[in-house]
């Protein structure tokens, strides 16, 4: 795993080396093992590397093809590089290293941009074509690895993290107010937006070609959707067998590494399945890691211990306290580079740190199973609401909703009239492509009320939900309720929040690479062809997985009710012993100076949470959002960060100057 950065523009070569060195230093956490740059007249490419495949110095980046006309910097893993290399060897390609990086550059030489379709993995890379003077950037299908870009005076600048841009001369970051509005609605900006104006991501599943006079983006992969007449399996046993074949291969590929591979064990079904398959393939010793909470409501330690004992793994666990969350919050924002509505990234960062402390670089984790196999409550909620909308006056249909949120007493104790008030919002609009998420987004977007008057005025005509609804109208028409909801979860939430703020950014902050067997594109494509009842059977989530694993997981884990991964959020940010920095960010002076939020409203919220009276889920999200946006402003817009010192700069182990 690595970090990359670079530019295509008019810098002199001397300036190019030091600029790249500074940009890479900002992301040295992504690759502490080795670094290098390639500089030519109009271009600079650089990488910091965490060595996982081919640990020799021969694997050092940048790497070229045989005649040195193509140069690559690469972040990620291509798991099927061995098979791809065999094919290229037959076509007379000559290799200098045993890295996956070199395979990509030869593949590009052979097949051009469309070679990305042959890659199975998680990646973001840049290739410079010296002859054509073209820069090629590509990102994996679902956006596991990040890649951002911006432009300044006709120069194109890119990097694995936005913080690299802080070191490019002349770039000043400022907030995109539209993106802020998207964040407090969807928990993410709509691709390719980021929270910063004129800074974009290379959207998941796309590549870009930057030529002297032209720049183009191509989508090479989209979540495949299947209409009801084309579902492939009707029978769960057959589907489970077919799934198992693909999934087993996905795990096998993800065990390829020249360093030990460990696994996360959350106590839920998904990571228990990945662990079970790992043990099936390599029964020897496996290290597993988990996180627990001092607050009982959120803690899953007992299930983690059951799983660790069952699989006989060498298990380590760390505990996260409320104090850990506030103490680490500034760092979490520095790495996530995005507004947060929940504090859940913090424990993921502590978990990654505990892995690093055990000298492990790679962990396999269960992300994606909920999205692909109907694990989330929002899918059940949608199913119930569709059923209820057929008879909106039914007294009994809404009662099904009580089953979904047993941990929220105000819902589980409600009468059907009450549930109507809770969940009845736009109940009959079942035709909307975003029906599943209308209520959630509508509620969350109330956080916009906290914006300052001037921001409110400027974004008053921007309605993210309606815009998205229009965009998706024809795209999602004719698909079943679950497919539509899955599309939103996978395309927006998974990539924009889960895999970034809770995934890549928290792992890489600690130089840890996550690997996601459920997100192998073959697994994704398979799951999207299934009848919804094979995923959500009645209200039984992840039905296919449960059927497949009968007798192969501890009963307690197989049959436990789904627990959403949530970190404590209640009133964490109002206590007296809050770190001084967080207090400062919420102070009258900072709220006024940054101008993003309405001072009076923030004060009202603060005192409401302090008195712990009438505090809702949205209030807590608002508090987290306000604090995270204040910190983002301070670090990235105001740049209250120390300049890089000479002594901090990375050593460039490989410098190639044309």
């Amino acid at each position, binding site marked *: 795993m690595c970090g990359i950065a670079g530019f295509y523009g008019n810098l002199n070569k001397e300036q190019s080396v030091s600029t790249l060195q500074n940009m890479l230093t900002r992301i040295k956490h992504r690759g502490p093992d080795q670094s290098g740059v390639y500089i030519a007249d109009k271009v600079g490419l650089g990488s910091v590397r965490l060595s996982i495949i081919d640990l020799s110095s021969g694997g050092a980046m940048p790497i070229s093809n045989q005649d040195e006309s193509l140069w690559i910097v690469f972040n990620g893993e291509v798991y099927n590089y061995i098979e791809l290399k065999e094919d290229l060897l037959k076509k007379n390609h000559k290799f200098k290293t045993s890295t996956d990086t070199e395979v990509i550059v030869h593949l590009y030489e052979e097949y051009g941009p469309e070679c990305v379709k042959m890659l199975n993995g998680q990646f973001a890379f840049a290739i410079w074509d010296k002859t054509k003077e073209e820069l090629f950037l590509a990102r994996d299908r679902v956006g596991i690895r990040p890649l951002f870009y911006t432009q300044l005076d006709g120069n194109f600048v890119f990097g694995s993290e936005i913080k690299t841009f802080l070191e490019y001369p002349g770039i000043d970051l400022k907030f995109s107010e539209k993106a802020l509005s998207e964040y407090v609605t969807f928990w993410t900006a709509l691709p390719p937006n980021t929270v910063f104006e004129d800074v974009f991501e290379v959207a998941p599943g796309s590549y870009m070609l930057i030529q002297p006079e032209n720049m183009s983006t191509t989508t090479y992969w989209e979540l495949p959707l299947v209409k009801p007449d084309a579902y492939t399996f009707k029978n769960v046993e057959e589907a489970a067998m077919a799934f198992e074949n693909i999934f087993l291969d996905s795990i096998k590929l993800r065990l390829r590494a020249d360093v030990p591979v460990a696994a996360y064990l959350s106590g839920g079904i998904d990571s228990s399945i990945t662990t079970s398959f790992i043990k099936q393939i390599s029964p020897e010793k496996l290290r597993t890691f988990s996180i627990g909470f001092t607050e009982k409501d959120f803690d899953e330690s007992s299930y983690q211990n059951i799983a660790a004992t069952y699989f006989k793994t060498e298990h380590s666990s760390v505990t996260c306290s409320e104090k850990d969350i506030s103490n680490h919050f500034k760092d979490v924002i520095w790495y996530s580079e995005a507004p947060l509505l929940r504090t859940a990234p913090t424990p993921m960062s502590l978990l990654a740190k505990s892995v690093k402390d055990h000298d492990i670089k790679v962990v396999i984790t269960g992300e994606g199973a909920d999205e692909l196999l109907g694990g989330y409550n929002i899918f059940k909620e949608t199913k119930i609401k569709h059923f209820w909308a057929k008879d909106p006056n039914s007294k009994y249909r809404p009662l099904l909703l009580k089953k979904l949120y047993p941990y929220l007493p105000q819902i589980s104790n409600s*009468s059907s*009239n009450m549930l*109507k*008030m*809770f969940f009845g919002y736009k109940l009959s609009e079942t035709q909307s492509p975003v029906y599943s998420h209308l209520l959630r987004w509508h509620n969350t977007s109330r956080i916009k009320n906290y914006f300052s008057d001037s921001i409110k005025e400027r974004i008053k005509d921007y309605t993210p939900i309606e815009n998205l609804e229009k965009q998706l109208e024809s795209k999602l028409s004719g698909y079943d309720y679950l497919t539509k909801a899955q599309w939103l979860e996978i395309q927006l939430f998974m990539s924009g929040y889960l895999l970034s703020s809770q995934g890549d950014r928290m792992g890489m902050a600690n130089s840890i690479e996550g690997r996601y067997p459920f997100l192998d594109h073959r697994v994704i494509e398979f799951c999207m062809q299934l009848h919804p009842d094979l995923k959500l059977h009645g209200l039984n989530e992840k039905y296919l997985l449960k059927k497949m694993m009968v007798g192969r997981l501890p009963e307690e884990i197989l049959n436990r009710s789904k627990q959403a991964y949530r970190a404590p959020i209640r009133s964490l940010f109002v206590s007296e012993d809050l770190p001084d920095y967080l207090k400062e960010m919420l102070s009258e002076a900072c709220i006024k100076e940054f101008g993003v939020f*309405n001072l009076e409203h923030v004060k009202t919220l603060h005192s409401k949470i302090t008195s712990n009276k009438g505090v*809702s889920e*949205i209030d807590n999200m608002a508090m987290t959002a306000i604090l995270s946006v204040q910190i983002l402003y301070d670090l990235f817009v105001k740049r209250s960060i120390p300049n890089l010192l000479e002594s901090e700069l990375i050593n460039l182990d490989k410098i190639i100057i044309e």
Partner: protein
Amino acid sequence: MENKNDIKKEIKRYILEASLSEVKDVADDALIFENGLLDSMGLLFLIEFLGETFKVEVNDEELNPKNFESINNIVSFVNNKIAVKV
């Protein structure tokens, strides 16, 4: 006992504060939940507020849009409850 105007003023003040809205944006007949001024949790807190301020208990059967959809509806609901009590 508070008069009808005071009741309306109090309820309106509460809703403005809870929804962080401006007076001009909240008409007496605006649909509070439909327009997103308050969400479902907001309804619960509103009920708590009615209990504390006007000693009005809300039964399950009374929790319906007819009684709660706008400031006008809430005010007449509260007035009816108080009238019955007296």
